[in-house]
């Protein structure tokens, strides 16, 4: 009696796995009206419903926010929608107001320009200000608010004010005062942008933030290199009257020593005299160059 039961168990178990595989191959259930569904959007309601599981629910919403951002960013859909990103971050930080990474990384996620993010620096600032209300001593939130104003909104006066405010908070590094002054004086210059990202790459305590800063620094290096290459192409064109056909022309003319590659190791493109990043380079898209403070 035992053997037949065991065989039946194996058969039924195998059948369930096989049917699941068939189900998956057929594309799962029919698509619903919207995959982006959030049953409870009110942080206040969720805090009450959480009972004593608020921290654990915050973790779940954080994981969902990371998945939503990463999944949307990597999707091939040309109309990438990050609709749930802010509500998920809002829920996370309402359930656990000390979830520092959710404020800091969330601000980066929200600020990124499309298609890499929703391009909502206003919401990023809103989130960071919420963090500051929960933890008024947290200078990093003020620093990042300044940074969002600087990099994504290109509002250098506001950025300088926030850097100055961050510098006055307990435990803030002394160089923030200098950053505030430099931002006011030279906001928008590539040098000051580089200095800001270097500060973040040096001081951010989360690996993700450091990586993001390193990525931005490589993009700034690429922008410097693109300027130099474009200058070389202009000089070549002025001298010969025609644009170079490829990098080999520039190398033979003595303007280059070899094939130019970007900081990610991907060769630059030269088409009809126009120099650009290769579309396959991980440094795409390059950030919009901040306008100099007038």
């Amino acid at each position, binding site marked *: 009696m035992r053997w037949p039961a065991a065989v039946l168990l194996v058969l039924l178990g195998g059948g369930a796995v096989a049917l699941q595989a068939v189900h998956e191959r057929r594309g799962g259930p029919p698509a619903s009206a919207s995959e982006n569904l959030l049953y409870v959007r009110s942080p206040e309601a969720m805090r*009450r419903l959480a*009972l*004593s*599981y*608020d*921290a*654990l629910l*915050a*973790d779940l919403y*954080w*994981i969902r926010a*990371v*998945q939503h951002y990463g999944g949307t960013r990597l999707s091939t859909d040309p109309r990438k929608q990050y609709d749930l990103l802010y509500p998920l971050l809002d829920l996370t930080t309402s359930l*656990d107001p*000390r*979830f520092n*990474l959710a404020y800091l*990384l969330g601000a980066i996620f929200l600020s990124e320009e499309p298609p890499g993010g929703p391009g909502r620096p206003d919401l990023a600032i809103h989130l960071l200000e919420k963090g500051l209300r929960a933890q008024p001593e947290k200078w990093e939130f003020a620093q990042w608010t300044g940074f969002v104003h600087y990099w994504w909104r290109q509002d250098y006066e506001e950025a300088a004010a926030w850097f100055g405010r961050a510098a006055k908070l307990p435990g803030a590094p002394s160089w923030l005062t200098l950053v505030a002054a430099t931002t006011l004086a030279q906001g928008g210059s590539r040098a000051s942008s580089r200095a800001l990202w270097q500060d973040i790459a040096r001081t951010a*305590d*989360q*690996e*993700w933030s450091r990586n993001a800063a390193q990525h931005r620094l490589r993009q700034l290096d690429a922008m410097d290199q693109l300027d130099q290459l474009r200058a070389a192409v202009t000089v070549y064109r002025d001298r010969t009257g025609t644009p170079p056909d490829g990098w080999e022309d520039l190398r033979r003319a003595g303007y280059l020593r070899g094939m130019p590659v970007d900081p990610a190791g991907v060769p630059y493109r030269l088409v009809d005299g126009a120099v650009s990043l290769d579309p396959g380079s991980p440094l795409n898209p390059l950030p919009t160059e901040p306008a100099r403070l007038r």
Partner: protein
Amino acid sequence: MRVIGYVALNVFKESVRDRVLYSLVAFAVLLIGASYLIGQLTAGQDMKIIKDLGLAAIATFGLLIAVFIGIGLVWKEVERRSIYSILSKPVRRHEFILGKYAGLALTLLVNVAMMTAAFYLVLAYMDTQFEENVRAIWPAPAVDPGMLRAIALIVVELLLVTAIAIFFSTFSSPLLSAALTVGLWVIGHFNADLRNFEAVVDSPAAAFLARALYYVLPNFAAFDVKAQVVYALPVPVSYLVTTAAYGAVYVGVLLAGAVAIFARRDFK
């Protein structure tokens, strides 16, 4: 006192026979599985999340044991009619109730102690998976003895839930007892709203009633310091002592009520 001990030991043995300790296996699998998966999903919050999960799991498993065993302790003896043979022995009714309570409390203590040991083992293992610069930014070390403060209050909370379950089980069916116990546990987390009720209602009578309920109903939110210990925020010893004393007094009230009701029950 010795009789209470015998009854308690019997309850503990019975719960072991009923495979209650299997919950520990589920706890260990959950924690170990989650600690592996979480690293892939959380963008650098592994330690915080595994601590949140571990503490929440200890509280949840304990709550399930307290409710679902607590509600059947008295009812089962009545239903099986074994209560006649027990009470025909030199076991007084209050000894029976207190023994049952102590037995389940012992079961819970053993469970929580073993879950805590497994939790710390997982944390110690995870600690070895990170480099020094990552560990430096954690608000507290992985194997942080400070978390025992939250676990201590979870134990007090579970003892209170057990007392509530036993109280209800002395006069109602298991289903109703479970509903009432869980209901009271849920309401107990909304105590702060009852305190502030007068701010949202105009009626002084309603405000007075809400205020009265705030003092009478058990305040379960007071036992929850999980988030504080995960962020290594201070939880003063005085807070622990007063909260534990509050729990102990409440347990005393409920057990006294359970004994009083059970003493008047007619089993004929």
